[in-house]
């Protein structure tokens, strides 16, 4: 029962938030005109604002949330760590380093940027896993997180170093991007993120049963005939690709991957196939809502999206940490 309520309620909330996010802005558009504008009727100026400014932004927020939600669910399950998520594991930080290096090298296209971010993410996660293993923290959830947070801090430092020689104007832009933002959304970037999210999302859904088995632990998983090390790597890489693609198009948006899987599991969705799908839906809802909040809370300025999600995520993290210990 609660499960059905979750699916229906979240879907309705997403639709409502999308409409609200399209309507709200420097030029408010009445709700009636939103539907007309989406269909291409009515005031040409409103149509242009909706189609070229508001809608890409909402679509980007939706995809970022879906990707981060799915990555969080897959990482938590396969690592058996309820605190795992791309941002805290240093995946996003590594992706940001990759993206900054690619941008300064002039490879910042909508197609190539995610790949550079992915390379950075893969390196960072590999490093985090190695550090955690060297610290002998395989059994302890918190060691991997500490390693991830450290790698993330290092990634931040690396970005600062890379930007220290750059002109002031691009530093300001990059800073905004490090705080996470979907303000610069354009249809090409939406299309590329959509392609990456769809491909990696479908792959994760196909591997969802493996995540169910991995969540039992490496030895029980082996006993069920799963090559646990290989399956774990594969899921880790796919989640990193998802996270990296979101970082490449919207910067660092933390804690979505942490909060969303807990909420969806709390609604009674336990197996990873429906869980990952549910996290895509709930993640999209959360980020569309968070971006709307970022625009509404302090007009006429905007709050950074990453700051809004962190305001939600940090208290949540602390509650989870308490529950763990």
């Amino acid at each position: 029962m609660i499960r059905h309520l979750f699916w229906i309620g979240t879907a309705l909330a997403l639709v409502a938030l999308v409409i609200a996010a399209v309507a709200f802005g420097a030029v408010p558009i009445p709700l009636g005109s939103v539907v007309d504008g989406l269909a291409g009727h009515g005031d040409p100026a409103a149509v242009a604002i909706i189609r070229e400014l508001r809608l890409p932004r909402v679509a980007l927020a939706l995809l970022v949330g879906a990707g981060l939600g799915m990555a969080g669910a897959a990482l938590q399950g396969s690592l058996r760590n309820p605190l795992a998520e791309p941002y805290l594991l240093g995946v996003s930080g590594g992706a940001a380093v990759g993206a900054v290096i690619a941008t300064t090298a002039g490879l910042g296209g909508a197609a190539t940027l995610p790949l550079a971010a992915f390379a950075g993410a893969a390196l960072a996660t590999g490093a985090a896993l190695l550090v955690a293993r060297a610290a002998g923290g395989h059994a302890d959830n918190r060691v991997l997180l500490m390693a991830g947070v450290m790698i993330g801090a290092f990634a931040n430092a690396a970005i600062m170093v890379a930007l220290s020689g750059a002109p002031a104007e691009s530093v300001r832009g990059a800073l905004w991007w490090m705080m996470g933002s979907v303000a610069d959304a354009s249809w090409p970037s939406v299309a590329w993120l959509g392609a990456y999210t769809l491909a990696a999302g479908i792959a994760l859904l196909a591997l969802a049963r493996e995540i169910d088995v991995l969540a039992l632990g490496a030895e029980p998983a082996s006993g069920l005939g799963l090559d646990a090390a290989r399956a774990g790597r594969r899921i880790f890489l796919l989640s990193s690709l998802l996270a990296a693609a979101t970082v490449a198009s919207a910067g660092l948006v933390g804690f979505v991957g942490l909060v969303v899987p807990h909420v969806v599991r709390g609604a009674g969705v336990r197996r990873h196939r429906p869980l990952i799908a549910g996290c895509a839906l709930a993640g999209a809802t959360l980020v569309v809502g968070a971006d709307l909040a970022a625009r509404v809370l302090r007009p006429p300025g905007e709050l950074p999206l990453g700051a809004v999600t962190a305001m939600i995520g940090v208290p949540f993290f602390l509650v989870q940490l308490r529950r763990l210990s």
Partner: protein
Amino acid sequence: MLVVHYRGRPEAALRDVSLQARRGRVTAVAGPNGSGKSTLVRVLVGAQPIASGSIEIDGIDARRLGRLERARKIAVITQREEPVFALPVREYVALGRYPHEGPWRGATAEDESAVGVAIEQAELGALADRSTQQLSGGEWQRVRLARALAQGGDALVLDEPTTFLDIAHEMAMFELFAAIARAGRAVLLVSHQLNLVARFADDLVLLHRGLVVASGTPADVMQAHTLEQVYDWPVVVTRDPAHAGVPSLIPLRRPRSEAAQ
């Protein structure tokens, strides 16, 4: 029939072990800590590569079987397993069907019936909808057993399945193992509980430093001098007062003068 023959590095946990577990029988593996019992289980799970030697399942070299095929033939319950994310008991047991599933295929009627039978065999009917995080230690071990039963196959390997259980739960588990063997499976049981093993096992293999020290019926294997050497502790072997012909082990206290040193 399962033959394990594993020979490794000098410091290997299993140096030269050969044993078999037959259908319809409980075969117990005992030995002190570090004797190689858990390594044996890890080898059977496929989590530990074999340096040399072979595992045969029904006369087929296990390495020629794929991982999934092996899992369809041998179900293993490892020593420790802590659930991180709660699942309803029935869905947890259904994970035992993983080696039978395809990537996109839902549960078939065969899967559902295997899960139902396993839940019944492990006497879990009343708990089927409970969350795995709301189980007592004894219930959790029975739920794990049900998952292994749902996995199917002819062999069941259990590594210390009754650790942390009280007497009643431990006895109930051993009765279940015996019933599972009587129903036709080969049950390979790694256990420290020599006195229970003596009652329930048909065959006993005693390991020490990666070698088989003795094997045969529990009465043959549980000789005081053998056990004293292997466990490096004084013991007396008497007869089980409740079961004729079954040996019973009593570890002794050290003589007072020795203990004082």
